[in-house]
């Protein structure tokens, strides 16, 4: 190993510690008797049980699940259609169209959330879960489309032609050949969309009405009293573990299907 690569690994290791140390502390504290170190009576589910006594917190998790599920379904369907169109057809302005489609990936969510909220309010639409879902669909479509476009491009067209040659119409070909073959891509796109929606606060904070998603709920509580902090560690840990689990699943699917 060269000197520079050792240096690089040391720096990278430091950055990783910086990333994971606070998260590890958070997870530890969620299982701790008090809201600060040192550990006392560890591990305890005290804060998790406490959390159950906050119906607003439970509801927030429910709303989050709902928003993320609907977002995922819609974003994946858009992604399949969009990905297929981008991979298989050529039209004037395709590059510009693709560029515009990917814009939300580089636009700060806070700006998107703010402008979307102003626009919808002018249109007479009030913030609500539906509005959050619309916002989340907008920010996840670029990801699902991108993932699926590359899967469609990688798919050998002659497989679809073979199905048609054997008598399958366009729809049957899609259902029996195309879709099963891009299924790993669909799963990856779905998990990606779910995680983005599940974790978003910047956009949802503008679009939420009385029903708050979990990250928005945490955010709004943090603005209030510090005595809520211990149950927040429990709630954050739940959100985080779920996202990490999904990310892990996504990597597995990617590895198996590669």
């Amino acid at each position, binding site marked *: 190993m060269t000197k520079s690569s050792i240096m690089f690994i040391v720096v990278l290791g430091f950055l990783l510690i910086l990333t994971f140390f606070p998260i590890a502390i958070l997870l530890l504290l969620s299982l701790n008797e008090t809201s600060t170190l040192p550990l006392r009576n560890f591990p305890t589910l005290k804060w998790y049980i406490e959390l159950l006594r906050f119906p607003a917190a439970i509801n927030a998790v429910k709303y989050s699940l709902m928003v993320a599920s609907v977002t995922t379904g819609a974003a994946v369907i858009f992604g399949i259609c969009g990905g297929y169109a981008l991979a298989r057809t050529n039209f004037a302005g395709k590059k510009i169209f693709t560029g515009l489609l990917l814009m939300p990936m580089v636009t700060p969510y806070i700006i998107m959330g703010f402008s979307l909220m102003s626009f919808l309010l002018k249109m007479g639409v009030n913030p609500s879960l539906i509005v959050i879902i619309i916002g989340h669909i907008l920010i996840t479509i670029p990801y699902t489309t991108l993932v699926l476009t590359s899967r469609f491009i990688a798919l050998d067209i*002659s497989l679809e*032609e*073979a199905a048609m*040659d*054997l008598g*399958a119409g366009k729809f*049957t070909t899609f259902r029996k050949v195309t879709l099963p073959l891009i299924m790993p891509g669909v799963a990856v796109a779905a998990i990606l969309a779910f995680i983005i929606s599940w974790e978003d606060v910047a956009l949802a904070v503008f679009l939420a009405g009385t029903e708050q998603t979990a990250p928005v709920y945490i955010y709004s509580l943090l603005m209030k009293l510090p005595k809520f902090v211990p149950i927040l560690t429990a709630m954050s840990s739940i959100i985080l573990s779920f996202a990490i689990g999904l990310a892990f699943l996504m990597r597995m699917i990617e590895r198996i299907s590669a």
Partner: protein
Amino acid sequence: MKIDVELKNVTKKFGDVVAVSDVSFQVEKGQFFSLLGPSGCGKTTILRMISGFEKPTEGEILIEGEPMADVPPFKRPTNLVFQSLALFPHLNVYENIAFGLKIKKIPENEIKARVKEMLDLVRLPGYEKRKISQLSGGEKQRIAIVRALVNKPTVLLLDEPLGPLDLKLREEMIVELKRIKREVGTTFIYVTHDQGEALTMSDKIAVMKAGKIMQIGSPIEIYEQPNSEFVANFIGGTNVFKGRYENGAVEVDNLGKITVTPECQLSKGSVLVSIKPEKIFIGRKLNALDNIFAGEVKEAYYQGRVVTYRVLLENGSSISVVAPSPGMEGIFGIGEKVKIGWNKKDSKLIT
């Protein structure tokens, strides 16, 4: 004779590229018809037009007399064995072969019977449950062929199905294909760039060059009576000399007079003469041949069954000769003085 497939003045352009140019031919029912030509000459494009994946820019395609212009691929009575095989990787052997039958809503027990019959036909009985990734190259080839054949198409289209196989397996598969063809009797249109395959299997061959058909005929006609230098060279290689025809002989620069059998009543004029290397005799002494020239062996390649020589003739021309190995006089070495000669019936005029 019933015509299964007919192309009438078919041209296909991709933008500025003319892939197929004014091609016409007829394929009779039950015929093994080959499209033979070098890479990029438009063979795949013709198959894709017959199966409906490309539309002719000009001209018309008829199958069993029906114009195909408005018939989509999934409604044509053709099945294609793709150059890449295109077996479905997510389905097993049974599901691959049954794919077309399931779409036609054939009852499950009949599908089972027909798949079994097909696997027997290609001598892979019991392969139903295998995954595609568990098959060898030759097995994939055979599954791809029966996945198409099981649908009982009017015409089976095969796009270089033996392309990626090694020589030994290819030879086995050629025999196998001929047997399958004999047993099912379906019309085959077979695409290849390998003249050996085409000559061995076909009833009729269309030799193509740059989108055009150069010659159509039986293997014997194509081999023995090539109508152009290209066909003569493409089919097994040949010696071509340029000369002037007059009274049953051709005067060739740097060689002399070659006697020929006129196929048609030629008037005087510039012609090409083709002499196949294996029609030429080589020896220390030769007689009773119509054309005999003296020369010196410049190159000799031992190839097992035959030896290929390049002989520089006294008058400056060079000629290649394929002789049995070892011949009556053994194998000639480089630098040996020899005579070469052939009969006038083997001097083919190309006009």
